[in-house]
């Protein structure tokens, strides 16, 4: 599988990274080089092998249903580029 400029732009748009035509074109050979290299994985016979789910045998711990957090609005908003009246603000969204 290899990518072309249109694919690079589509992927960049999915990833919400603005790129111009020149950058997209520059990325095409770069990404194809990397993708071509990782495709050697296709050689590996993985029939009957379960994909790894836990790196180290360990089970998911569950928490008790207790309120232990929140009430820290100042901390939540402390680094916000734009906030008012206790809200984060973003450019107006039209749904």
């Amino acid at each position, binding site marked *: 599988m290899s990518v072309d400029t249109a694919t*690079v732009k589509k992927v*960049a748009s999915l990833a919400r990274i603005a790129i111009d035509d020149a950058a997209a074109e520059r990325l095409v050979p770069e990404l194809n080089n990397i993708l071509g*290299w990782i495709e050697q994985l296709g050689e590996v016979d993985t029939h009957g092998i379960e994909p790894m789910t836990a790196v*180290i045998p360990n089970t998911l711990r569950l928490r008790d249903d207790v309120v232990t957090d929140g009430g820290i609005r100042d901390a939540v908003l402390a680094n916000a580029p734009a906030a008012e009246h206790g809200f984060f603000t973003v*450019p*107006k969204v039209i749904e």
Partner: protein
Amino acid sequence: MSDLTDLGIREIRDGVRAGSFSAREVAEAFNAAVSAARPLNAFLVETPDHALAAADAADAARAAGEPPKPLAGVPIGMKDLFCTKGVTSTAASHILEGFTPTYESTVSQNLWDAGAGMLGKLNMDQFAMGSSNETSAFGNVISPWRRNDGGNAALAPGGSSGGSSAAVAARIAPGATGTDTGGSIRQPASFTGIAGIKPTYGRCSRWGTIAFASSLDQAGPMARDVRDCTIMLEAMAGFDPKDATSLELAVPQWEAELDASLVGKRVGVPKEYRVDGMPVEIELLWQQGIAWLKDAGAEVVEVSLPHTKYALPAYYIIAPAEASSNLARYDGVRYGERELPDGANLQQMYAATRAAGFGEEVKRRILIGTYVLSAGFYDAYYTQAQRVRALIARDFEAAWEKCDVLLTPTAPSAAFALGEKQADPLAMYLNDVFTVPASLAGLPAMSVPGGLDPAGLPLGLQIIGKPLDEQGVLNAALAIEERAGFTARPQAWW
């Protein structure tokens, strides 16, 4: 008094306990060394007051006759991937420029609780993506090492924990935290002639550490020798209920159990850990390492890890895939940089913010990760990579039938010059060829200095251990360290 900055963690700890010098004297000496070493660009933020406050607390506790904390009086450097309360934490990225956490990462908190102080936040590859520290948004870290060829080529300190490796090697910090996703502790340790260990996945909490690839990221110490790493790791590690992947196990008494005798231990040498174009001195060092471990009493056996070749490509699917998702939160809404071109809507703001905020390598990996997870490709790439990962883990399990630890080179080369590999991302990725397999399998692994190459640059040897067997790794590394007698250090030019 001899220069306090020549002392390692254990010497400082013991000296402060014995009253040979005060913690404040130590902190002042390192604070001065840090500001004198700015040409290295190892620190992004200097926090001399933090180091002094911890030192004063240590001195006061000693004066009051309180039992000493494990790291009382020891100042350290903190990789900028760890969120530190009230101190900017940026992952060396513009997108987090000015971000000041209101919280402290578990690992850093553990270190402060153990009495350590912070000299500052260490430069690194942006979001820990890189092997040379050239992807930092705030400039390269320059290795304190120089080749013995008379040239002044600026060398890479390795990455991504390049600020950490440079600071420890340059003696401006006796120890530093690192994080290792595919080799980011071990490779820079190897490049700069210091020791560094990535513990078993889950030993150190990931809470409050800026994520790169969640299933791989592990924090660990970088210090001048094995014992210093051991002392620091004991303080950093531990169960954390805030991290669902944290191991619910007590921290072993690794330092007390350090033992360089390997009698009755079997060391495996994996035959697949050879790559085309690997310098002969690395092969020679590896043979030397085998001899040292035999000398320490170990039995050496050849083992096979047949899927080694596929570790790196699997890693370059899994890590970017996880990263593409982990880094989605950097969108200019709640913290960090926001780029809002005139008239931009929300989605355009995201795209502009992320285009301006992320560096080229970060973007490249996000794009690869996005691509391999996208509709129609997920199974061929991601699922296949996780299956291969399972096979790699299985290779190791089979090897543990025959041996207790593995010995390999840490990296396929010594430090290269800055700029040398930047043009070719793939060539850069190949740096992690020996470190990535253990990362994929979540195993403890350590780099320890073994010797110098003909250019006078350090080379490291890697010990890989069974899950949870940090002790076996540390002991084997100690056996090498004692026999290698590595005393070389960079001459201060900064």
